[in-house]
């Protein structure tokens, strides 16, 4: 095998490896631990009190814009599930992507819980960042949650400009 063939195989392997992993990046705040072997979530972390932060990635959901998905999520949670919509704000991810954050409140077994959903559209994907927990514990963990939300990157810099691999955290 010539030197050029070896180089070609190496580049192919590198490109393949670059395609693995998550298509986003998020930092885990102190006090949270990341959970492994998640099936429904691409990322999920929790505190000892059960305050959870998670990210879902829905592939090929570039058909609707953020307004569409915001309305769909609001109808599902507010009208169907009875969550109280407390606020709706425009947010920006760490990479500058515009998104929408919905803050809900809901009682579970007679106790108040907080729940936040942040939506980003990038890379032909819908990124759903969720955070929730019992209101008291959630309020204590809120600075950490906000820090983690701000750390989310859904449109990352190319690892190798030549490959135009728009990936994050793929190692």
């Amino acid at each position, binding site marked *: 095998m010539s030197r050029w063939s070896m180089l070609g195989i190496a580049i192919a392997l590198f490109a393949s490896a670059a395609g693995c992993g998550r298509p986003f990046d998020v930092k885990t705040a102190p006090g949270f631990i990341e959970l492994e072997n998640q099936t429904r979530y691409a990322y999920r972390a929790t505190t000892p009190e059960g305050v959870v932060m998670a990210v879902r990635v829905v592939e090929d959901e570039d058909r609707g814009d953020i307004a569409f998905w915001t309305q769909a999520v609001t109808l599902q949670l507010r009208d169907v599930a009875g*969550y109280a919509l407390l606020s709706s704000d425009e947010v920006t991810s760490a990479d500058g992507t515009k998104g929408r954050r919905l803050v809900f409140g809901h009682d579970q077994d007679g106790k108040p819980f907080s729940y936040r959903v942040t939506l980003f559209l990038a890379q032909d994907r819908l990124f759903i960042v*969720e955070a929730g927990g019992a209101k008291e514990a959630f309020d204590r963990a809120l600075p950490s949650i906000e820090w983690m939300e701000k750390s989310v990157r859904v449109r990352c810099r190319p690892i190798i400009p030549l490959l135009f691999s728009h990936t994050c955290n793929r190692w």
Partner: protein
Amino acid sequence: MSGRTWIAALLALAWVVGCGAPDRAGMSARSPAHGAYAERYRGLANTTESLETASDAIFDADDVPVGQPAPAAPPPPPPAPSPTAPGGAGPGVGAPSPVAPQDPTQEEKRDRHLIIYTARITMAVYQVEQGLAAVEKIARDSGGYLAQKRDREITVRVPRGRFEAALAEIDKIGDVLHRDIQAEDVTDEYVDTEIRIKNARAMQARLRELLARASVKEALEIEKELARVTQELELLEGKLKLLRDRIAYSTITVTFQPRGVTLQATRVRLPFPWLSQLGLPSLLSLEEEK
């Protein structure tokens, strides 16, 4: 000045005095013309008079605070409702009539519509305990009272004049998912009940007169009829009392529940499975993942 001039001057003065719209006090004083009218339509006029008295009594309930101190200046009574909310234009209580009425009884009827207001509000399920307590406090502060309270539902009664203000306050305590306001005009029912009561009382009086000079055999029959009329009178008086209460105090029911509970069957389901997986149960169930 001659006698003719004096007569002409007196007639002119009388004409001037007779000008201007008669006020309510004037109407209540029963001018000769009104007396003749009332004589002509005695039943209807009497009914209207009693309706006016009843309305005044009902409306007075708005000004009597119960329990907690009420705001200093109560808002005006709600206008007649539109199909969706009680804020639309229409022949509301005390609403000015655009055309000068010719028939005083009709004017009374127009001005004294008796309306029962009922509101059902569905709120999102969040901090339900505080929400129930807040609704109860709003009712008491408005001079109303608690009618019923369950785990996730509360019914309060507020004076009719404070109905809209109470609704506005309730809106602030949570996320309102749905609001249903109904206005039922019971003027005809009220008038009808009053006429029936009047007739029943007259019948009762006549039967008592007959009873006084009846033979034993006749007395048995008359007493039987008297018992029936008395029972009917009690029922009618009870109905009138209930109507007065429902007019004087509007009913507001606040329920903390998802709308989807009742709308699920007819609701369009979007073809995105992940939507139904959103929410706290899925997010917080840490043991399910493998």
